[in-house]
């Protein structure tokens, strides 16, 4: 007896737990004669988290999945292979077949769904075998528009010129009673969700392309900040203002007819340098290492720095290449004995990669060479290597 009670209790507990799970996120759809605990609540849960998903065991879900099976649905190259379109049309046909036939409940909405699917098939069939990916995506977007997502977003759906509030059940669908409209409505919503799935599946490569472009541009902006000339904020401001001009190659396109800039700016391949103070070293042939060079304050009065973007394995990359530039520079070095005043010298400066070198001359003085720290380090490092090699030969 105790065993029977325990068994019964376990069964009741399991059933309750199952019902609870079903009511929260499960995929159980009450049949025509089954009581629905809370019809509108359950319908929203189903449309949002079940119908048309891999949790949904309905045959039409499996049929659509089978119609789409094969290699990657959409080629990401310039042209889209015909089989992709064929498979999409096949999937639409699966939905159309399911939507056809007599529908006792929601007949008007089913009819509107069929009309939309027939239109979608027509548009997809109009795609040529060698269509460019841009045209292909735009056509698919028109054939399978965002409206298919509306019920799952909690909104009435607009189909065939009419709006259908499919999340509101007939008034006789009350809690804890059977609701004859529930299962057919769920089926209708399933087809709508499957059409929305189709849209996402077909357009997914465009999302991948957008991600790849965003990553490339983000990395190029990082390189702009880290690998080009280290601009101060007033230089960043100046370059920002110049980004709409030819001086920087017009990385930001002209504004549209309504004065609005669309899309994103290209990452520039040129910087303007203005009043840029930095530490440098006055070169001396008598010095044996960097530490023996005199420090200098160098101000790039005005200059320009250019680069290109490396293309690796045929694709654009975020690595800078051919970095070079030129500036007019002023350098200040205290060259005389201790206590004596230093002097300003002026002259041209060149940049090549990470290295910069200026040749400046003070009024009445001699020409002197001022180098940046990476160049001094490279020079003395190289010279030390040569000395070491020669000593080994001896």
């Amino acid at each position, binding site marked *: 007896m105790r065993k029977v009670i325990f068994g019964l209790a376990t069964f009741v507990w399991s059933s309750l737990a199952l019902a609870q799970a079903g009511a929260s996120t499960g995929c159980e759809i009450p049949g025509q004669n089954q009581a629905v605990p809370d019809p509108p609540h359950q319908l929203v849960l189903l449309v949002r988290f079940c119908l048309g998903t891999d*949790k949904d065991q309905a045959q039409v879900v499996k049929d659509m999945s089978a119609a789409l099976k094969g290699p990657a649905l959409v080629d990401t190259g310039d042209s889209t292979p015909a089989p992709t379109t064929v498979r999409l049309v096949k999937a639409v046909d699966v939905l159309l077949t399911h939507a056809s036939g007599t529908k006792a409940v929601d007949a008007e909405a089913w009819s509107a769904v069929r009309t939309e699917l027939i239109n979608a098939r027509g548009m997809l069939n109009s795609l040529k075998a060698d269509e460019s990916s841009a045209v292909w995506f735009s056509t698919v*977007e028109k054939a399978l528009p965002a409206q298919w997502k509306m019920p799952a977003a909690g909104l009435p759906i607009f189909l065939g010129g009419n709006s259908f509030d499919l999340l509101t059940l007939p008034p006789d669908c009350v809690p804890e009673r059977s609701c004859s409209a529930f299962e057919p409505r769920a089926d209708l919503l399933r087809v709508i969700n499957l059409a929305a799935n189709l849209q996402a599946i077909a357009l997914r490569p465009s999302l991948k392309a957008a991600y790849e472009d965003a990553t490339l541009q983000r990395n190029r*902006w990082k390189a702009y*900040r880290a690998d080009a000339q280290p601009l101060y904020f007033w230089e960043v*401001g100046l370059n920002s203002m110049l980004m709409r001009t030819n001086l920087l190659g017009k990385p930001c396109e002209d504004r549209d007819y309504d004065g609005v800039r669309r899309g994103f*700016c290209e990452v520039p391949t040129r910087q303007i340098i203005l009043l840029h103070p930095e*530490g440098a070293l006055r070169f001396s042939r008598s010095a044996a290492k960097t530490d023996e060079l005199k420090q200098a304050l*160098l101000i790039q009065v005005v200059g320009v720095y250019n680069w290109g973007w490396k293309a690796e394995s045929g694709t654009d990359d975020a690595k800078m290449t051919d970095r070079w530039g030129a500036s007019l520079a002023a350098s200040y070095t205290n060259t005389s004995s201790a206590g004596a005043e230093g002097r300003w010298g002026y002259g041209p400066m060149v940049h090549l990669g990470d290295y910069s070198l200026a040749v400046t001359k003070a009024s009445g003085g001699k020409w002197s060479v001022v180098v940046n720290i990476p160049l001094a380090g490279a020079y003395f490092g190289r010279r030390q290597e040569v000395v070491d090699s020669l000593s080994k030969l001896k």
Partner: protein
Amino acid sequence: MSKHIVFLVHGMGNFEPGWSGGIQQQLKDLFAAYSRAAPFGQEMEYREIVYGDIFESWRELWTNEAEKAASALKAVGLDGGVAEELVKLAGSPAGDGFLKTHVLDVVMYRFLLQASEEVCQSVRAQITEHLLALPDQQSIHYTVIAHSLGTAVMYEAFFGMMTAKEPLRVAFRPDNVFMVANAVLPLWNRGGTPYQPIMAPNLGYSDGWCFHLANFRHELDPVAMLIRFQPPPNWFTPLAPKDVVYLDQTIPAEDIQDPNVHALEHYLGHPSVHIPLLRRLSYEGAINKAEEKQALAEWRKERLTNAKLKEAKDKLESMLLGKATQSWKDEFAMLLALRKLMLSSKLKDGES
């Protein structure tokens, strides 16, 4: 669609990865507080967006370069003159003044294309990466909750994404966007009007940003009240009427639980904010009128009263500009005062 993704976007301040943990918990607790909304709460997955690192990188660069220049200036023994002024100017982001605060982030975003473009590309990369990680055989449903500077960042990033050469297709646009303490108008730097047709909540009927857009402001929030987001009637189409696809909610001045009414936590805690949000993420009937009334009454029991309320209101009212000024000087002063208030508040929104 399996889970519904909720993107959380921070505002002005020092926000590092993981910043949204507290906000996520707050939203989970809010779902759990309403029995019919609770099952939907279990189906939400939260993703945070971070972009403050870009401003920080620029600030670090300027600080490091200025330090090197200052050290050279010292080494050559140069006193006074233009060079010293220039080096001092270069070092200003490292000082204690205006340029050191996160108000600078707002200035950088508004005036430096390099910063705003990198921020938008970073947001674009983060969103598309998250969406690509979702199951590839199902439609995608997600919501954006953006706060303060984050509203401007998301608005512009999505505008850029949808009008780019490789546009964000309709299948991958958000279901809902919630803009809290909206700062879109003062920070829009693309010219023309920000009320672009493509940004309207018109996705179901044409080429729009989302299905539903909501805008929340507190009457005493100096940022949200600077230039109010008020779309013109013709932004909405007859098929997507304003009263169906748009919500504009103002929280009354008396409703203050903490002087930092600008905080995302303060906004989300208010039933006039979180109830519409939870309803959009579940369904309209998930929270009934009686529950709403009760939640509001409960929330108001915790409001500041008497002297504390007066003090908070006085402080906030002194920051209100009434309208945007031409010079930006007043706006910067307001942002600095607000920043001071934010730093002294216990409501941090996950800021480090």
